[in-house]
């Protein structure tokens, strides 16, 4: 984490490397907490509104991660409370049904920044996205001086622990102010309460939006949300199954940066350079390791910690010239087409849904997968509005910096007119449509430290566009089918709607059984419509709309579906 928060390095010449090493040493001496205090804008606490969102986000991410690790279907309750008599003091409470935390671990989980670094191993996880719940505690301390309050219980036979802690900004050590055993109705789970200076505002970039989107990308979780006005909303889980557990992999040589590479050389347990390459990276066999060393002209038997900076750079430079197998891609845990579709369907009311999960691919040695879910014909859509884009990275919604995100670029770059959707030059398409794009990877390349936009790698944009295009084709197939159905319905109803009038008139004019006449006319109307349909089918024989949709993860909501069937999002109610 620290690495990415540090100032960008100059190109690695030997001279600057020495500087960097010293700099790193020096930085280790500065407490991370102090660093935070000075750089809180980098971590999502730029302003009171965003700070409120970041606190919720960190706590919810923690809860979801904890539940999933323990294989418990998450139920997360988020409550925002404005302290009476104040205008900007909020208490953020996030409570989960997770496994709980043993008391000894509580200070380390909540009180220490960057606890449990995942640096040397890669795994698709939410954690990559923030600096952790401790940062929220830090922000609380800085703005209100109040400690974090934590309740946690690990099981029926275990007592619940209540802890108040705050971080010592000079030492980066958690400081327990209070600890006691308390009565708590939850059998297992954790609750954290943080008091901060914040600002609550509905609409875009709000906590509400964040939770809505989190529910879409985590259809296995239930969220209960009470906003500061006391309105309660429940986002029910749409599926009862766990996401596949993502696997950890070692970094692939193609993706490793020089600084990291050098640090790995220092930290490795391997005894030779060759052994280090084989054991600390994925897809490096002994022959690949030998080839790298040969190209770099560095001895394969050298002790890693003794490899000089210059040699390390040579090895690092040699890596891209050697052909190395792609990393395994089965380590990811995409949401999956069916579940993503259910998640979107649960939160967005529309006529048509489809989802596409692309097979995993690789950028710079990192496996990644792109998924797109699309809802078309969204209810109550303001006319001419541009599509709503929902961006996700490793199941976490990205709300800020849409303009500089690869996801936005991929959508802008898609030629929507090919799919019957209007699009002005350089703008998002205009249609009653929501597009959710999920980028899943063992390492999400963010454009900046604030981690709110995916970086523009060609391999990534290409995959995103392929997924969007497939979804776009399906939308087009649906739109065409709907138009065709409408035409057929109109033709049929044209005749059928006048049958009664015609039969009535005939019955008045001449002696005839009105019912019999109607029956005969009905039969003829069906025949006539079929004839029309056959002709229409001939016209549309080149239209393979139905073929496009066949076998895809697609849901078409029947036009006359009862509101009860569709009203999956419960209306807001007073808590």
């Amino acid at each position, binding site marked *: 984490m620290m690495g990415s928060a540090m100032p960008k390095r100059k190109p690695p010449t030997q001279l600057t490397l020495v500087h960097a090493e010293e700099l790193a040493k020096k930085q280790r001496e500065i407490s991370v907490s102090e660093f935070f205090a000075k750089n809180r804008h980098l971590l999502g606490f730029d302003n009171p509104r965003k700070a409120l969102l970041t606190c919720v986000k960190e706590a919810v991410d923690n809860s979801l991660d904890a539940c999933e690790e323990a294989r418990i279907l998450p139920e997360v309750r988020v409550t925002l409370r404005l302290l009476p008599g104040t205008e900007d003091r909020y208490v953020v409470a996030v409570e989960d049904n997770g496994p709980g935390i043993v008391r000894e671990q509580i200070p380390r989980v909540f009180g220490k920044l960057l606890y449990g670094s995942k640096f040397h191993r890669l795994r698709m996880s939410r954690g990559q996205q923030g600096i952790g719940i401790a940062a929220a505690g830090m922000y609380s301390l800085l703005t209100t001086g109040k400690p974090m309050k934590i309740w946690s219980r690990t099981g029926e036979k275990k007592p619940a622990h209540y802890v108040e802690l705050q971080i010592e900004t000079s030492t980066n050590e958690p400081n327990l102010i209070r600890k006691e055993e308390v009565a708590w109705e939850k059998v297992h789970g954790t609750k954290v309460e943080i008091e901060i200076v914040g600002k609550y505002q509905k609409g875009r970039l709000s906590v509400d939006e964040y939770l809505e989107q989190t529910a879409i990308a985590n259809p296995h979780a239930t969220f209960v949300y009470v906003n500061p006005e006391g309105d309660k909303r429940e986002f029910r889980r749409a599926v009862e199954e766990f996401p596949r557990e993502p696997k950890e992999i070692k970094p692939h040589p193609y993706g490793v940066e020089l600084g990291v590479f050098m640090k790995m050389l220092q930290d490795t347990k391997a005894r030779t350079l060759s052994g280090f390459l084989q054991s600390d990276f994925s897809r490096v066999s002994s022959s690949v390791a030998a080839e790298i060393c040969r190209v770099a002209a560095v001895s394969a038997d050298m002790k890693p910690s003794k490899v000089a900076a210059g040699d390390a750079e040579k090895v690092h430079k040699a890596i891209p010239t050697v052909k190395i197998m792609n990393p395994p891609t089965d380590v990811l845990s995409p949401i999956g087409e069916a579940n993503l579709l259910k998640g979107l369907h649960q939160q967005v009311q529309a006529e048509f849904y489809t989802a596409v999960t692309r097979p995993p691919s690789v950028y710079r040695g990192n496996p990644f997968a792109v998924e797109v879910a699309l809802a078309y014909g969204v209810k109550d859509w303001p006319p001419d509005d541009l599509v709503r884009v929902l961006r996700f990275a490793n199941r976490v919604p990205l709300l800020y910096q849409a303009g500089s995100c690869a996801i936005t670029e991929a959508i802008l770059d898609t030629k929507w007119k090919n799919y019957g959707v209007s699009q002005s030059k350089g703008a998002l398409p205009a249609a009653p449509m929501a597009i959710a794009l999920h980028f899943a990877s063992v390492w999400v390349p963010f454009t900046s430290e604030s981690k709110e936009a995916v970086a523009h790698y060609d391999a990534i944009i290409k995959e995103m566009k392929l997924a969007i295009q497939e979804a776009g084709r399906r939308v087009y197939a649906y739109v065409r089918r709907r138009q065709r159905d409408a035409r057929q319905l109109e033709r049929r109803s044209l005749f059928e709607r006048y049958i009664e009038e*015609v039969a009535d008139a*005939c019955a008045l004019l001449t002696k005839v059984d009105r019912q019999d006449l109607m029956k005969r006319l009905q039969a003829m109307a069906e025949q006539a419509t079929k004839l029309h349909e056959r002709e229409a089918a001939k016209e549309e024989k080149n239209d393979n709309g139905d073929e496009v949709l066949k076998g895809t993860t697609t849901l078409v909501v029947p036009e006359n579906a009862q509101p009860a069937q569709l009203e999956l999002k419960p209306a807001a109610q007073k808590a």
Partner: protein
Amino acid sequence: MARAGTLDRETATKLTKLADHVVGQIRKKQNPGIDIPIRALSNVRFDPKKRMIEMGQEKQARTFFNASMARKFMQTLLLASAVKKELLASGKTTSIRDLYYMTKHTVQGTDENTFEEQDESDPIIEDLEVAVDALREELHLFASNKGAMVGDMTIVDQGDTIDLRRMGSGGWSIPSIVEPNLIQFKKVDAKFVLLVEKDAMWRRLNEDKFWQKHHCVLLHGQGQPPRGVRRLCSRMVNELKLPLYVFVDNDPWGYYIYSVVKQGSINLAYESQRMAVPSARFVGLSSFDKDKFKLPSNVTIKLNDEDTNRAKQLLNYEWFQSKPWQAEIRNMLRQGVKLELEALSKKDISFATDEYLPKKLKDKEWLD
């Protein structure tokens, strides 16, 4: 009344036949249709001997199972049934506007009406007339009164004696049905009939008592004269042996009004027999009148594109092929201007009454 009763029975039978035909087709699993004579230029014929426009034999089947005809098919039957049930059965007569309201309702299960506007039902009534070969009055329908009449004559209108010499400034309003069972001519001192295009000129002539001085009947039809006015003219010409003179604007529309009065219209060609007055004469305004009567040049109006196009169409009509007519129309096109009746007032307010018409009639300067 016995006669009317018989007629009504005949009309009812015609309507029943229409429905029988439709039901028969349905039983045979054929697309049910109503054959409607085409009321367009393509299906009218000018009979040079009778000097009348007559309807040809071409018919169009208005079928139900045809997306563009289904609605009109339904409307035709709906009107037919309403005429039979509401009018013929009760012996009452109503306006075409009334019939529109009587038959207008929401089609069950839709938000669509059987008729949205009266403009939609009026042409269907005309279709029905030709389809079952029954006149409008035989269907117990009339249009609103249009046009007025004064003159040296007494008539009886539904039993009331009306002296057309004592009608004040407004005249007798001409009903749309003027058949002999409703309107009878009594004391007739008139020597001719003068049909004026417009109400304004008619008022001038009435105020100046033109009809008294020249012993005539004076009537107008508010532009294109409706059926009632045309039928009345035809009856006066045929029954009273009076000549008919037509006095209209000098523009293509005035020419056409004259031609409709004289030989019938394309749209109502089936009525020509009853309404056309082949002997009608055109007394003006003529495109040569401006020079002849030395009208000031500022009374003319430039022909617009629509006028010019219409005039060129008229040049091609069979019934405008006589030399004097070709000269008349070509002269108008050459000058590029039109003249309205009111232009005569520019010389003197009663110029038409005192000089123009007397001179035209005396010199027999008219077009035939």
